[in-house]
């Protein structure tokens, strides 16, 4: 689903490289591959030679102490780092075999396909409805009926529909923090991405709202490939299939979540998991 403009023709090809959604168990390919990725902010190297492959329809947790590069890593997949002055990336970032930094990727299209949920809920100061409809509207969708349906569907996916259906015109800022974050997830789902990036999505929420979001993540992985940054070890344990441990810009270890937690291969991972630092 990642669209590419070939350099020669400068034309848009809609290469549909997505593996059929119906039978994820048989899928042997990877949705995302990063090969020898280095990231620099000016002279500072934030990521060092990252090699990681991620399967579709899985939840991968990115853990590690603050400043180790988790957000930086996450944001290379929708190229949100592009706006940072002095940002530079070397290596390959492949999504559906499209190199996000070498092939001519349509940024607008990429970001529709790769949704992002941020640390603090950041609904637009608009109505609940307008928030969810935003992505469709900026894509030029005019069909009111279609937008209506999509909004309703997305709000149902995040289990917010019942709470807001009577007052879709309410300002989104009037919702509670947990509701706001679910709204932000719905906003992302409404444009039908196939990858969702979540950067500490529950760190600003109370335990009850956190629980709801975690349940939601568990549901969503049937349809989406999810990368989630989290500080919370229990959360990583609860929601993720696989876990990647970052430390000082390096990927120390990646594996099944239970392996990482129960028998990590590296000592640094062990230390972090048991809370000896970070």
């Amino acid at each position: 689903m990642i669209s590419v403009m070939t350099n020669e023709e400068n034309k848009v090809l809609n290469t549909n490289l997505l593996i059929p959604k119906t039978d994820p168990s048989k899928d042997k390919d990877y949705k995302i591959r990063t090969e020898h990725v280095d990231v620099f902010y000016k002279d500072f190297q934030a990521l060092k030679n990252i090699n990681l492959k991620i399967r579709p329809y899985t939840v991968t947790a990115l853990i590690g102490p603050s400043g180790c590069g988790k957000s930086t890593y996450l944001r290379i997949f929708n190229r949100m780092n592009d706006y940072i002055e002095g940002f530079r990336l070397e290596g390959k970032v492949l999504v559906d075999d499209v190199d996000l930094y070498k092939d001519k990727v349509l940024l607008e299209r990429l970001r529709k396909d790769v949704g992002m949920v941020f640390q603090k809920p950041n609904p637009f100061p608009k109505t609940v409805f307008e928030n969810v409809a935003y992505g469709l509207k900026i894509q030029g969708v005019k069909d009111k009926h279609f937008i209506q349906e999509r909004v309703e569907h997305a709000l149902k996916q995040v289990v917010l529909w019942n709470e807001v259906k009577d007052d879709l015109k309410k300002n989104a800022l009037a919702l509670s923090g947990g509701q706001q974050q679910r709204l932000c997830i719905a906003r992302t789902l409404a444009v039908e991405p196939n990858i969702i990036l979540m950067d500490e999505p529950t760190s600003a929420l109370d335990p009850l709202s956190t629980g709801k979001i975690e349940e939601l993540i568990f549901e969503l992985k049937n349809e989406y490939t999810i990368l989630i940054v989290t500080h919370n070890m229990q959360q990583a344990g609860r929601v993720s299939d696989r876990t990647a441990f970052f430390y000082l810009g390096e990927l120390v270890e990646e594996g099944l979540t239970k392996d990482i937690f129960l028998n990590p291969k590296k000592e640094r991972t062990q230390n972090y998991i048991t809370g000896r630092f970070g």
Partner: protein
Amino acid sequence: MIRKKEFVIEKFLQLSAIITILTTIGIVLVLTIEAFKFFTEVSIIDFFTKTDWTPLFSKKQYGILPLLSGTLLTSFIAILIALPIGLVIAIYLSEYAPRRVRNFVKPALELLAAVPTVVYGFFALMVVTPFLQTIIPGMSGFNSLSAGFVMGIMIIPIVSSLSEDALNAVPMSLREASYGMGSTKLQTARRVVVPAASSGIVVSVILAISRAVGETMIVAIAAGQQPRLTINPLVPVETLTTYIVQVSLGDVAHNSVEYRTIFAAGITLFMFTFALNTVSHWLKNKYRERYE
């Protein structure tokens, strides 16, 4: 000894601060007392409803509307120029321009506000009007269009600078959310950032209007000195401020009604700008709460 010195100094500093309050009281008192005397001789109803202003003629009429309309017309034209240009600049600087460009452009634009207003008056009369006359035949040598246009250029920095501050105050996270969904910068600006900064932008516009309403020399030089109730931008008009200048330049006896007319015009102007400034402060406080 030190105690006493500290005390004296504090009192001096306090007095300095209190001078600003005395200034306000002084302005209000002077304007109301003289205006009050004026209204013992001229009906306040006539003042606000009559459509002729001829205090310096033998047949005296004291209807403020022509002066008010002159003020509004020139200010309206100025805002018509300053709002779109100022807003485009603000959006460009806050959303598009690299930091280096912004650091250079902002002080350069402030230069527009640093030019003395008589100089703008000269531009309006000697450059803009002759130019416009080649396009619009029949335009008078004095008119509100040139004056308003040049005034608009002058107040661009008010709109652009304050609006840019408001746009910058919109949290980065909202932009990220919008970019994250595939918006272009323009879409993000139009649909997210500008609406979120709208009250700050309104404040900038109100302050710009207030500045235009109180502007004197440009209109005194280029808009003419003929009180006239009109919306035609091509003919001479007179503003409240121009009238005050006109009387001040002539020989008018103190304690005459003519003399007091400038205070009547002054209090009208003062209340007008005071209302605008009050609304803008109120709005500013309201939106300041939003992101804190």
